[in-house]
């Protein structure tokens, strides 16, 4: 029994992605909900909203890795969500600002908000967004580069915990002011609006939005598998180890700076992908979608879903946003209080979030009902007595 895991070293890639029955089950249930239940149950309008909530889930998966597993709390994921969102918005805006449709402007061919702000030439950093492949490349590389630059010196100087969290929050606040202050270049507080087509494909139609919803779901599963793989490698165990015993890992010969930079950049990348898909489905991007408050919202979704469970984070984003929409439609003034109370309740009563309810209570209960023998538990009890 005891040498069991030695005889099955690591396992193949598929084994590690679907380790255990419960893992396959949770992916299957999520896939059924996202690909079958929601599209058949919801109207086109509601499905689009669900797609929008799923975009937040990308950032939440990143937080599960970065905050839950590696212990690095980032209150600034909105910044990276915004990098992806704005990149996509800038591409779509340029496509919507062709010389014919902007002929009434004093400078035709540039985005309308630039014309209103007396900008007469397209700024240099907008040029890459004329090409779709370049835009996609920027969505994937910009968050990695920026997050590496932002966190490298802090991690090298061993700034972690609350101090780092506050730094990330000030980063996102700075970027908010930066966008609002540069109205002529980024559209200011109004954001970048009136996005119409993607390579000539009208993204505002019902059928386009339905397709975008499915694209989002597929990307989401891609990110879930990628995250699960990262966590299944030795890197995942090193991250968990350094969260609790930083010194020990350092004295096992690891340079923790690079591990922390890696996971922070990975979380930033996921957030950026989510942001890009968000812009496609919502049709605009504004600084208020990426500021301090939305960044904290992302933390709340993750905490509610379970900060150690990537699938849980998806449910967290979906459920909290659904509740937000329902309650704020019915009781707009009380919603914030319900929201706050809900968060405090979850943190106090369920530190592992909804995922914890599943693994610690429901699953055990189902197992005891079905008389399924769980191999992990009896061994632990036996070992405690020896």
């Amino acid at each position, binding site marked *: 029994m005891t*040498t069991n895991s*030695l005889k099955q070293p*690591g396992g193949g890639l598929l084994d590690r992605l679907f380790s255990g029955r419960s893992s396959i089950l949770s992916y299957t249930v999520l896939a059924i909900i996202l690909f079958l239940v929601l599209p058949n149950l919801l109207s086109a309008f509601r499905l689009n909203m669900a797609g929008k909530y799923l975009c937040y889930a990308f950032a939440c998966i990143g937080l599960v890795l970065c905050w839950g597993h590696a212990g690095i709390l980032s209150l600034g994921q909105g910044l990276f969500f915004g990098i992806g969102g704005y990149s996509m918005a800038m591409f779509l805006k340029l496509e919507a600002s062709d010389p014919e449709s902007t002929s009434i402007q004093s400078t035709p061919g540039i985005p309308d908000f630039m014309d209103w702000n007396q900008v007469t030439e397209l700024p240099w950093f907008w040029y890459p967004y004329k090409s779709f492949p370049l835009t996609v490349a920027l969505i994937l590389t910009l968050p990695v580069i920026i997050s590496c630059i932002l966190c490298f010196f802090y991690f090298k100087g061993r700034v972690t915990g609350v101090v780092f969290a506050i730094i990330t929050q000030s980063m996102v606040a700075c970027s908010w002011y930066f966008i609002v202050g540069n109205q002529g270049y980024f559209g200011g507080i109004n954001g970048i609006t009136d996005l119409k087509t993607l390579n000539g494909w009208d993204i505002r139609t019902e059928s386009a939005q339905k397709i975008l919803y499915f694209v989002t779901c597929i990307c989401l599963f891609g990110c879930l598998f990628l995250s699960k793989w990262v966590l299944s490698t*030795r890197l995942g165990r090193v991250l968990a*180890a350094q969260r*609790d015993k930083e010194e020990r890992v350092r004295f096992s010969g690891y340079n923790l700076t*690079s591990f922390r930079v890696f996971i922070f950049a990975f979380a930033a990348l996921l957030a950026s992908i989510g942001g890009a898909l968000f812009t496609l489905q919502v049709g605009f991007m504004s600084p208020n979608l990426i500021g301090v408050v939305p960044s904290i919202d992302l933390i709340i979704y993750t905490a509610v879903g379970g900060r150690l469970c990537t699938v849980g984070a998806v449910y967290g984003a979906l459920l909290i946003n659904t509740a937000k929409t329902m309650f704020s439609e019915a009781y707009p003034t009380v919603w914030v209080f319900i929201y706050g109370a809900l968060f405090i309740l979850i943190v106090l009563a369920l530190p592992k979030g909804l995922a914890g309810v599943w693994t610690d209570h429901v699953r055990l209960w189902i197992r005891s009902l079905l008389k399924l023998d769980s191999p992990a538990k009896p061994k632990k009890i036996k070992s405690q007595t020896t």
Partner: protein
Amino acid sequence: MATTNTDYLLAIEDLTVSFDGFKAVDAVNLYVDQGELRVIIGPNGAGKTTILDLICGKTKSTEGSIKFKNQELTNMREHQIVRAGVGRKFQTPSIYENLTVLENLEISYPWGRTVFGSLKFKRDEKVQARIDKVAEQIYLTDQLDMEAEFLSHGQKQWLEIGMLLVQEPELILLDEPVAGMSFKEREATAALLKEIVKERSVIIIEHDMEFVARIANRVTVLHMGKILADGTMEEIQSNEKVKEVYLGH
């Protein structure tokens, strides 16, 4: 720092560290040979743990040099010192409670300690063989799949020693390895130490004189940050100065 090269594995010369003017370690010279088991004793606050912290880079020295295989350690970062071949065990067992014994040992395996190395790391035959061998040495073969938090206190101490052995260091620094162990566990630990010192050097801080007498080649007595005496156990036990500050009470 013009220090000469030596034949010693570890050569500490004029090592001084002061915290706000208080000299915790004061001009210490210490030489450790290949295959030597050196024990450092001394009353509380003598600077024993500080010396280990200085060697492994946890604390930065104010003055002096620490040379490991003639390589200066005082300006290296912790992980570089570990990779150079120095392993450190902490006073309280410092292991990863939520990982299994096997995973604890695996994390210490000295290959793939970079980000991408860790992503590609595979538990192959070589890794398993190494872990199996160490697990047997530290008496934990039957506990490999157990989560480390369920080990007894003594087993946790052994596990941390095992994590060092997996790293294959040439010098091991142990801070009170038998603290809180039962008599039987102490005996097993003494046997373990005698076994591991065959292939490497060990520096141990210890309070238990009976245990020290059983294992030590040479004993260094530290008092107020300075070396008070240095020699075999018999020499130390008959040293008047040592009796006065330490052994007498």
